[in-house]
């Protein structure tokens, strides 16, 4: 019985995490002790570093990260405002700040932590019926006080864009193909992009506004074997 549940859980999480070929399981406290020691409350999101071939990727990413991050329980500076201010400073890409001391961000924005993101892949694959959004990102949450890396995520998320039309027969299939094509063409990936971001943030310890703040140390998370491993 136990084994069955474990297997089901594994399957569910594998589905959730997209193509996690190999995964290891650890608790949040084991993986990200600094989050529980330094207790960051506020986060400023930097413009993403785009290494994907999709020109749209940074826009999708940056407009859909705030919502899941807020739901994780942190005070998140409104990206529209912080990115505007940074743009006035000539910073349009997180890369420009990567090597710089982060305490200036503390002085300027009052943020405890800064979120760097590297978008490795942001692809929509389109087959006859199935259509997927594949998002591969590397995120790092660094302390603006010590510059230390407090949290990171590296992984690939695959989101199914297929509309779940259950019409039968060839007509049903045709409708489904058309709807999928339309879905892809209309390119309203906002909900999917948000979903991909939410999954990436899944392993982040909850912030002070989350009801389970500081109660999630023993929560198990699956870590995809990342490229840096």
């Amino acid at each position: 019985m136990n084994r069955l549940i474990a297997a089901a859980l594994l399957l569910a999480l594998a589905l959730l995490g997209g193509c996690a070929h190999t995964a290891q399981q650890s608790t949040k406290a084991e993986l990200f002790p600094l989050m529980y020691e330094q207790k960051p409350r506020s986060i400023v999101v930097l413009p993403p570093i785009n290494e994907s071939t999709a020109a749209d990727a940074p826009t999708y990413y940056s407009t859909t990260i705030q919502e899941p991050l807020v739901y994780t329980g942190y005070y998140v500076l409104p990206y529209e405002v912080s990115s505007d201010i940074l743009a006035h400073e000539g910073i349009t890409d997180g890369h420009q700040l990567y090597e710089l001391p982060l305490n200036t961000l503390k002085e300027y924005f009052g943020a405890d932590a800064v979120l760097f993101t590297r978008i490795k892949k942001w692809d929509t694959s389109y087959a006859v019926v199935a259509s997927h959004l594949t998002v591969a990102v590397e995120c790092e949450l660094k302390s603006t006080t010590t510059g230390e890396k407090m949290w990171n995520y590296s992984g690939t998320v695959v989101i199914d864009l297929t509309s779940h039309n259950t019409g039968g027969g060839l007509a049903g299939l045709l409708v489904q193909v058309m709807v999928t094509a339309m879905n892809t063409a209309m390119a309203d990936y906002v909900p999917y992009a948000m979903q991909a971001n939410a999954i990436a943030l899944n392993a982040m310890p909850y912030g002070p506004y989350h009801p389970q703040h500081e109660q999630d140390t023993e929560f198990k998370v699956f870590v995809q074997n990342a490229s840096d491993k």
Partner: protein
Amino acid sequence: MTRRPLRTVQLALLAAAVCILCTGCAKRADSMYCMDNYSSTLYACRKNPAQEQQDKHVKAMEDIVAKSEQRNLRVPPGIFAELGYVHLKAGQMAEARKYFEAENRLYPESKVFTTRLLTWADASSGTDGDKPASEATPKGAPMDSKGGVITPADAVTDAPMLPAGEGAAHE
């Protein structure tokens, strides 16, 4: 006896995983904040910065405030500040001020940020507000720590952020 707790944890995890799969976090999300169409209208804005899209995004944020109050939820972080910023850019300083103060009150973490925005609002309240890179010095505008005059657009370029150790003193 020793197996029981483990099983409960596993069951709970399984339930959570299934829940997330089915609802895409919508359930958990609803109980904390109401963010409505925020991401969608923001994306539309970025994609096509026409006034119409901006107006829709502002409307979405105003709806978030209204709905949050209706449902007795905390207005999500950043919404008041972003609304204030929209008014700041439009030169409506009194409105901007109101929103920045609301953000400040609701989220003490925003203090440094909202104080900075409030300084800009004050600095430009005697001028047109949204004249970027204006050489004109507004009369009686407050000085920043280096003695320079802050206006919203200039302030950003004036206040040094990048040179390490030269950031405007703010504590």
